[in-house]
């Protein structure tokens, strides 16, 4: 049953140095506030899992929280590069960053397998590409009925999964809607789960692609209005596209990033 607690308390309770941590959200509902709190608490040696690292992981990587990144598309959406991620991969700054690289389809299958209690999942993917030569977590598997070769990828089962949703009810159940990405799978595949929400409501209304996660699969629910900024929460906010653009100059140089970090996160 989910505790309703403050974000700092939830992160302190559930995110530890060396953990594998996933903050999911596909453009929409990215748990930025939780990411900043992990930076503030000085976590180190995290393995960060996320389909699109986005600004949220550019920050964590630049702040030195990560030792490994598991991902499938690492750009600043609509803008360009993630400079802190690039600096870590190309120049090992502020620390070497091991990468484990997949496609979106592969990561989605890995999340499904993780949520399903299976050790692996299968897909028609990666065939002919260079990815299997550089990523250990891609293997062949043969269909026992047709003899056809397919690709297998191992389940994702992080220590902690963190998402942002629109609403919780008073029992600690959580509801999100609109573009919901792999967030259900992230919560169900992770050993511990934290959900930040825009607000607590008395009862949920039906929504397009409404997804409810019951309280008893969540460890902590934290009310953090705007906790997805600069991404958005449909029904509550719009994506802050100018912010995504402004991240490019902030993150381009180590100095400007560190200044931002000191002023906007650590202050």
């Amino acid at each position: 049953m989910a505790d309703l607690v403050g974000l700092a308390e939830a992160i302190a309770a559930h995110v530890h140095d060396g953990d594998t941590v996933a903050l999911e959200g596909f453009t929409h509902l990215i748990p930025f506030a939780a990411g900043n709190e992990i930076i503030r608490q000085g976590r180190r040696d995290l393995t960060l899992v996320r389909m699109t690292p986005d600004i949220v992981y550019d920050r964590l990587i630049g702040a030195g929280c990560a030792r490994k990144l598991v991902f499938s598309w690492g750009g600043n959406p609509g803008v360009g590069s993630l400079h802190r991620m690039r600096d870590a991969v190309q120049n090992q700054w502020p620390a070497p960053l091991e990468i484990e690289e997949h496609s979106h389809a592969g990561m989605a299958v890995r999340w499904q397998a993780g949520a399903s209690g299976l050790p692996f999942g299968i897909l028609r993917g990666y065939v002919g590409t260079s990815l299997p030569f550089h990523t250990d977590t891609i293997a062949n598997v043969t269909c026992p009925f047709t003899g056809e070769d397919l690709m297998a990828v191992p389940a994702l089962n992080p220590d902690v999964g963190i998402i942002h949703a629109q609403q919780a009810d008073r029992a600690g159940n959580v509801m999100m809607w609109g573009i919901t990405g792999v967030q259900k799978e992230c919560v169900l595949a992770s050993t511990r789960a934290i959900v930040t929400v825009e607000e607590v409501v008395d009862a949920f209304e039906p929504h397009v692609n409404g997804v409810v996660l019951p309280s008893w699969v969540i460890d902590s629910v934290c009310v953090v209005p705007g906790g997805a900024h600069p991404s958005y929460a449909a029904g509550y906010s719009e994506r802050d596209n100018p912010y995504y653009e402004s991240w490019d100059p902030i993150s381009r140089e180590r100095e400007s990033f560190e200044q931002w970090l000191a002023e906007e996160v650590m202050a």
Partner: protein
Amino acid sequence: MTDPTYTSDDIMTIVAARALEPAAVTFVGIGLPSTAANLARVTTNPDCVLIYESGCIGSKPVRLPSSIGDGVLADNADAVIAVPEIFAYWLQAGRIDIGFLGAAQIDKHANLNTTVIGPYESPKVRLPGAGGAPEIAANCRRVIVTLRHSPRAFVEKVDFITSFGYGNGGDERDKLGLRGGPTDVITDLGVLQPDPVTKELVLTAVHPGVTIEQVQAATGWDLKTSSSIVETAAPTAGEMAALTALRNA
């Protein structure tokens, strides 16, 4: 570009929009592919179905989306579903007619690189990576590629095959059991299409005012020219107006 009334982005977008078949189910990436697909939808191709990897099926955005998960893609969509389903039930199952991809590098046999320039372990430039591209390239009935012409982008062999085109050419793609493959590479200078047998990309159209030599100079391999090469029809006033309206919406 000799005509000052349209930019290279404009003509790439308009030519790409023209390449969409009537009512085709199109898997759309953000940026130029999305602009082209929506241009087609609001002009000549109202029945085309736009699918975005964020889980939106039949998106009808009232303005151009600024990201793959922009709320306008979900607002009027026929259906919004989870990301694992988009890839498994819709893309992998072969329900998509046209995939629309960009790339940082493309090679002679239409293999695409969006992962890394230089060696993977010590990259010269680390690019964003695969995203949905490998499976879009593998599972659609055909793929349209858009990117700007330059010798650094159009190379003999890509440094990393993020998305498989035709490998080393010939029947290599068929042997791997992949559907479709790239049929059109639309650039700011012209259009390249694979030779039916060798699958080597050859120049089949040049945009107005562009010479074959210009395209060859911007291509990092010895680009062959189709015997039936044509000049692209210049953007019409109607196309330009629709594109401008779309961008300003």
